[in-house]
């Protein structure tokens, strides 16, 4: 079973994230970049499927040159190879364009299942896996907390706001996972060494047969018109409980007309 895992590199959530003042796009330069946390769960899910069914795990990333750091980490966890779409033309692409690039890149890979994270911490849109399914015309199994693969079909438990739905589709399919799915492994020393020689194929938009007018900020379907840094949250009051902590909260709520 061949598996593609979609991995995004994002600015570290614990750093102060910014937009670029000149074109209102995400500032990917000034902060540390990390693997989108949930994508590590997607990588783990891919490796577990491979271990149970044989085959290869291919990492697919659309992102700037420095995203190779994240790709190496994914390879050191145990993925076999990677496809990195890296092209300045992609800068400023929106979710729909990104999904189209991913769909085009998928055409260059043989796979039975595509696994993604449920949400990227930078855009927090939670739409790319659904869009990829739409773009490539495959079934969509999203927000999985459990995946079972049986012959030619996959069944997931999709988390819902009242519990979970059991959803089934034939393969190939696009699956996205939430963090309940597994516990990602840490790369071993051996894994880190091995990753250095695993192949990363770098592709441009032209390599994928996409026109320059299909991607990038100038052709995006959505646009950030302007932005402003919100005033920081007013520092609140913190008191030590002297036996009247509960009553003090009640007073505070009353003063705010919340009760």
């Amino acid at each position, binding site marked *: 079973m061949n598996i593609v895992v979609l991995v995004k590199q994002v600015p570290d*959530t*614990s750093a*102060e*994230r910014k*937009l670029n003042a000149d074109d209102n796009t995400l500032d990917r330069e000034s902060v540390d970049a990390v693997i989108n946390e*949930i994508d590590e769960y997607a990588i783990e899910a891919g490796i577990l499927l491979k271990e149970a069914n044989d085959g290869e795990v291919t990492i697919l990333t659309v992102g700037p040159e420095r995203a190779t750091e994240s790709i190496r980490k994914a390879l050191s966890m145990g993925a076999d190879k990677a496809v990195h779409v890296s092209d300045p033309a992609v800068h400023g692409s929106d*979710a*729909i364009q990104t999904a189209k690039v991913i769909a085009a890149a998928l055409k260059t890979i043989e796979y039975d299942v595509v696994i993604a994270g*449920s*949400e990227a911490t930078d855009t*927090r*849109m*939670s*739409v790319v896996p*659904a*869009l990829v399914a*739409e*773009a490539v015309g*495959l079934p*969509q*199994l999203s927000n999985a907390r459990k995946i079972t693969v049986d012959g030619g079909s996959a*069944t997931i438990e999709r*988390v819902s*706001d*009242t*519990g*979970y*739905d059991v*959803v*089934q*589709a*034939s393969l190939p*399919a696009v699956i996205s996972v939430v*963090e*309940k799915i597994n516990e990602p492994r840490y790369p071993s020393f051996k894994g880190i060494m091995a990753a250095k020689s695993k192949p990363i194929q770098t592709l441009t938009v032209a390599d994928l047969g996409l026109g320059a007018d299909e991607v990038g900020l100038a052709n995006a*379907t*959505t*646009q*950030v*018109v*302007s*932005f402003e*840094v*919100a005033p920081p*949250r007013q520092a*609140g*009051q*913190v*008191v*030590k*409980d002297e036996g009247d*902590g*509960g009553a*003090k*909260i*009640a007073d*505070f*709520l009353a003063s705010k007309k*919340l*009760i």
Partner: protein
Amino acid sequence: MAEVLVLVDSVDGAVKKATLELLTAARSLGEPSAVVIGAPGTAAPLKGTLAEYGAAKVYVAESDEIGDYLVAPKADVLATVVGQAGEPAAVLVSSTPENKEVAARLAFKLGSGVLTDAVTVNDDGSVVQSIFGGAVTVQSKVSKGTPVITVRANSVTPSPSAGAADEVTVAVELSDAAKAAKVVDRVVEAKGSRPALTDASVIVSGGRGVGNAENFSVIEALADSLGAAVGASRAATDAGWVPHTMQVGQTGVTVAPQLYIAVGISGAIQHRAGMQTSKTIVAINKDPEAPIFELADFGVVGDLFTVAPQLTEELTKRKG
């Protein structure tokens, strides 16, 4: 006036509050039309409320099968309705995980664009979004075609305004592609009669500090004294003290209530991602260094097992 399509969310024959918010927001853009998608008989009990909140038309797309599928058929139906409606000013859906995916796939089909988690919809169809945990506010717009917008719950105060609610039947034909992923079972884990997290204007959440499942009654009692929903951190859901449906945060529910009370929760970045745009935040934690206090408008450093019950008692007393 151009139509504005609003996808209706309902539960047990009642329109969800988030939909009333959308119908209210839609009026600044054009004339709201409601779109009901579901099993036969879904629309009938909803029409009264939809009329009361200004729906000029109610597009009814009912089918025996549609409930067996998620996302894809709904996007197909909405694309059909967009065609029927001529050139709608926008399509609005509430920001639930399923609706976000529906919105994205719809925009893809229409060749337009999708904006998620709007907190304000402007009258020209552009939106305001709050990103990076509320640190940055952006004005965005869809550059081509019909804007498809998902709106965050609790961003608009619903207000009634009479509408004709003229029924328009939509033929539903599910393509094979739309039927590719089938729901074979739906399992309900959430119990009780408390408000849903996403609708609630007050939420009380418990974390690892609560210690075990039985002790969660302390959180529930406080919630009940406020008419609040109960939430939890991942530590509490992973421990199995409460169902995962209660998880607030990055991979749980994102909420922005009037009041959020965090009890025995440290305030990890993934938890904050789901609650930090709440209007007022109160924290109870025994560790004065807990990061949740950086966010709190009011915090008490103390033992939750004394502070929370005292607060419950005070609130009950003051309600008289």
